């Protein structure tokens, strides 16, 4: 039997996941469900002091051209993360303060730019996470080359970023999840987080070390197995 009652990606559902993501990070999600998590090795960093981002992804590719980004911004639904992949190596700025202000007004989940942003001083005042791999004050031009297929699947660091996949990003990095597994993986990640916290508390309360809990001495002596499970 297949899952037949998939959750819609409505704003309320996305917002509930986002609030949970404040305490369950990429590390827990990856540990709890490695079979579903796709690591995205993107060297993007937060550009306005908001280090966590999550939501269904709305990808678009561009080549130093604002028009595809503007078209994608106009179509990205509330709660979704606009993911802009600039195909050039040295990017001109695709996102600035005006672009991000519009994203905030549209209640997006945030913006990730595989490329450059600018206006960092002004971005800080806008309550909308924005990540990028580069920064430059040089703005990308706007051509008349319209994009007719939005959203698009884009390939980044050897990984396909597909429309509707969920993107999670925090100080540990980025990962992707299939939309139909987000609930299950989040539940498992939260459980893992809960058990980890209990384990840390037990260590602090009882003075146990990691070597104690992993039976490291027994393992090194050849008298026992290594490891523990939260």
């Amino acid at each position, binding site marked *: 039997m297949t899952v037949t009652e998939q959750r819609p990606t409505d704003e309320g559902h996305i917002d509930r996941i986002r609030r949970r993501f404040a305490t369950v990070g990429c590390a827990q999600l990856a540990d709890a469900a490695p079979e*579903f998590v796709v690591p995205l090795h993107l060297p993007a960093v937060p550009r306005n002091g908001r280090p966590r981002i999550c939501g269904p992804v709305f990808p678009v590719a561009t080549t130093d051209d604002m028009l595809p980004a503007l078209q994608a911004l106009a179509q990205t639904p509330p709660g979704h993360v606009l993911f802009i992949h600039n195909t050039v190596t040295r990017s001109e700025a695709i996102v600035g303060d005006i672009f991000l202000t519009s994203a905030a007004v549209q209640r997006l989940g945030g913006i990730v730019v595989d490329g450059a942003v600018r206006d960092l001083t002004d971005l800080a005042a806008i309550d909308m996470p924005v990540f990028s791999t580069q920064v430059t004050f040089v703005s990308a031009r706007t051509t008349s080359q319209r994009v007719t297929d939005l959203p698009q699947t884009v390939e980044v660091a050897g990984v396909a970023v597909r429309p509707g996949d969920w993107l999670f990003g925090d100080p540990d990095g980025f990962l992707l999840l299939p939309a139909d597994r987000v609930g299950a993986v989040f539940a498992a990640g939260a459980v893992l987080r809960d058990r980890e916290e209990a384990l840390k508390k037990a260590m602090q309360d009882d003075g146990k070390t990691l070597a104690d809990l992993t039976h490291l001495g027994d393992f090194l002596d050849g008298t026992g197995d290594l490891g523990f499970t939260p």
Partner: protein
Amino acid sequence: MEREQFYREVVGFLTRTASEAGTNPPPADIDPDDNLFDLGLVNSFSMIRMIVFVEETTGVAVDLADHELETFYTLRGLYDVVAGTEERV
């Protein structure tokens, strides 16, 4: 799916996974309110497989965002989640 059938399905799953892992199977007198972690039947790393099993068996996508965490620790809680009877938070 009826509650008792759901319990049997999940216990069957836990029995199979215990057999594969070489660990103790669920006790014959397992109670719907027993903590599956405390019984050693699931851990943080196997939890995802149980949740996916529940989803695929019942056809309902579970969602942590709507439920308290402890709900996922017992058979009764799991059923309440998929049956929609767990109080939303």
